[in-house]
């Protein structure tokens, strides 16, 4: 099971944080900070698997991460997930983002964080991998966006608000 998905930049600023188990807000921030601390210390050509974060849960959990330009994509998983599989999943996720945003960069993630959440929701649900076929994911996301846009163009008449 995937415990958390975090995206943060080289300075530790969170760009996306999705937790599949409940933690308090303080704990969530602490986890982000601790993960950044662990991941930023790593060399460029070491392996992509990290163990030993204390907060997010002890000996069963590992961090699987990939570093793309200015962003770290970190998946915190337990032993029921295949490590190499998750590594590929990160690759698929980034390629999907690339297709949806057209040459995605960090700014896209910053200003369209809700869109990124929607894409992620098509891939991972409840901590489990849902869909890994990039085209299928994009198709669904496009359909939902179209639905939203069509709704917005038809807005019900808003009753005028009187100030009391």
């Amino acid at each position: 099971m995937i415990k958390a998905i975090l995206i943060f930049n080289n300075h530790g600023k969170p760009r996306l944080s999705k937790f599949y188990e409940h933690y308090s807000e303080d704990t969530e921030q602490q986890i982000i900070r601790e993960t950044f601390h662990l991941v930023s210390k790593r060399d460029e050509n070491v392996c992509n698997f990290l163990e030993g974060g204390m907060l997010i849960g002890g000996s069963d959990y590992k961090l699987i991460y990939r570093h793309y330009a200015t962003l770290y994509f970190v998946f915190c998983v337990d032993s029921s997930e295949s490590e190499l599989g998750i590594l590929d999943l990160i690759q698929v996720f980034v390629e999907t983002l690339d297709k949806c945003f057209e040459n995605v960069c960090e700014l896209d993630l910053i200003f369209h964080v809700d869109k990124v959440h929607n894409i992620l929701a098509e891939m991972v649900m409840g901590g489990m991998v849902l869909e890994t076929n990039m085209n299928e994911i994009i198709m669904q996301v496009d359909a939902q966006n179209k639905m939203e846009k069509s709704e917005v163009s038809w807005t019900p008449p808003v009753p005028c608000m009187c100030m009391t």
Partner: protein
Amino acid sequence: MSPSIPLQEMIRAIRSARTQCEERGVIQRECAAIRAQFRQADNGARSHNLAKLLYVHMLGYPAHFGQMECVRMIASPRYSEKRVGYLGAMMLLDEKQDASLLITNSIKNDLSHSNQYVQSLALCTLACMGSAEMCRDLAPEIDRLLRASNSYIKKKAALCAVHIVRKVHELGELFAPAARSLLTEKNHGVLHGAVVLITELCERNPEALERFRKTVPDLVQIMKGLVISGYSPEHDVAGISDPFLQVRILRLLRILGRHSETASDAMNDLLAQVATNTDSTKTVGNAVLYETVLTVLDIKSESGLRVLAVNILGRFLLNNDRNIRYIAMMSLQKIVGTDHNAVQRHRGTIVDCLKDHDASVKRRALELSLALVSASNIRSMMKELLLFLSSCPPELRAQTASGIFNAAERYAPSQRWHIDTILHVLTTAGGDVRDETVPNLIQLITNTSELHCYTVHKLYRALLTDISQQPLVQVACWCIGEYGDLLLKGECQETEPAQVTEDDVLDSLETVLQSHMSAPATRGFALTATMKLSTRITDNVDRIRSIVSIYGSCIDVELQQRAVEYNALFKKYDHMRAAVLERMPVIEKNSLGQTNGESAVEAIKAVQPATVKQGEPPLPLQPANQVCDLLDLLGGSEEPLQPSSVQSGTASGLPINNSSTAGGDLLDLLGGFEPTPAAPAPAVTVYEKDGVNLTLLCEKHSDSGLTVTLTASNSNDSDISSFTLQAAVPKSVQLHMKAPSGDFLPARGAAKVTQMVVLNNPNKVNLKMRVRISYTSQGSACQDTVQIDSFPGL
């Protein structure tokens, strides 16, 4: 306008803030505005506000006031608002919040919505944060969706079902039939979800596992389709057809085939095919291969297949990519228990990985190396491990040290090597060892009397170089105190003797006493050692007297107490000083703290060689194989009682004999390991039959421990021989029987037999003891049992 633009303006404003304080200001203003807008009845910008709030939440600012707004948004008929509302619910709500119950109804309605995207939102939220009650309420809905909907919804419903099963285990039964039927679907997403669901059901419930074994042929069929089929562009990842699904199916096959011959047979061909045909140049290929290897090694596969699997792992281990090496070591770790020899072949590569720069690889290599240590390679492996210890990252030190100790204990080729290894570890990583290392090492040293000279020389030299590593200093002080005379004698076979004078020794101990680096416990060791030396040296007793009296006014209460009592030993009890401070006897390995009969029985075998080495006559051993018979007698009792076993007392010079002469508390200071009996309480007769009389005396000596003395006498006209007692107590109580004083009861009460039993009752359960008496009288063997429910003096 689309909902994101106001969000983007806010994000721009936050990013343009140049200091943390400015950013906080911007966010606080925005939050205030958002709160005000939430309070208003309705406006078109609700979704924007919630989106802004979620962004702020991600940055770490409090956002709980948005929870009710999420609930309202979810209930809205508009898709855009629902979307943001559900996202907010996933981020802000959890089962502990009351607001989460309010959305149950909305989710229920949305699950039957006509629009599949609304259904999917509801499913997603339920899978993320559904509480047990919500899951119970909505499970039938999910089951319906699993059977009759389009593939998009089916795959989501499958994963939602997994979440439900995790929360409420009993509902697994509900989903089993639907899961079975999903395996016939063509859509890979649905198949994937179905496999995950079946995996979850099998892991939770062994009966489900039995039922799903029948699906092995279907799974094999699906896998074959994936592996053999030609290029299918929609599922292709780097040349392999849907590797994610392949990995999942392999994992399920592993679980299904684990203890079943038939299932394993059905998979053999397939696994061989996957193992040979998968392309291993890309990561995806390696992922599938890795999963195949794990499956082959876990099920009852044929030996040819196993060899193939281990070879694949060997290839992984030599791969340049560190990820692959890491993975290989993880899987070798899993099989090192079962296929030990196969893994031993790769020992060289694994030991090389200890020197890798990557901390994760090092960690894996360490665990694997510790598992590979065996009697034949102990010397070379230990060299490597000690080298690793001196350069390893700090977070791995404690694990390495304890691993080295365990390995040394199990496979030490000689005592001297063992002691050397422990000393080496203490000098390199003294701060990271566990607390019980010090007593264990002391026990080891006392047990090897021929090496006392060597040990004390080595430790003295170590003490001279460095007094910062506390465990080392403690052991060194203890040794110098015990064996200082050997050090001063100046001759030693094993190592170069040091020309040490009494002043030098006392100097070094005093340095430890006065150093600010010494912990209070270490100081205690040093003071006691100084005191012990007063009987071992001849010239500087006055110096010792003065040191001891100085510490009589030390601020540390523990040291002060020791010093005052030692002073008393000098003044009032000088005649006893030699007896009290004489050399410690061999410490029994199974002193207080050992629990049940099994470990005590092993300890007998371990202690036996030690007694033989000492050259002392072993005391008569009570057979421990009657333990099981006692259990038959105890068949009727409600509480399972624990069998006891009798141990051999080893050295006859137990401190317990000294205790009656010197004060009991002095021995506690000197680390006495045996409890001392205090003033006797009145004895109670517990058994009287056929002329055999058994009385019980018990004294408490600590909060949970007490000593019971059983005294037997014989009032018959004929003698009784082979008199033995065995005892059993409730499970949580620890029992330790001492050697009886004898086994012959002469007639007419001419002499008695006593046996002491030490009990430790940490959980303070109701103390009961059943005692079995067996003896031979007039040529016939007799046996009886008595149950003792009350202990006077408790």
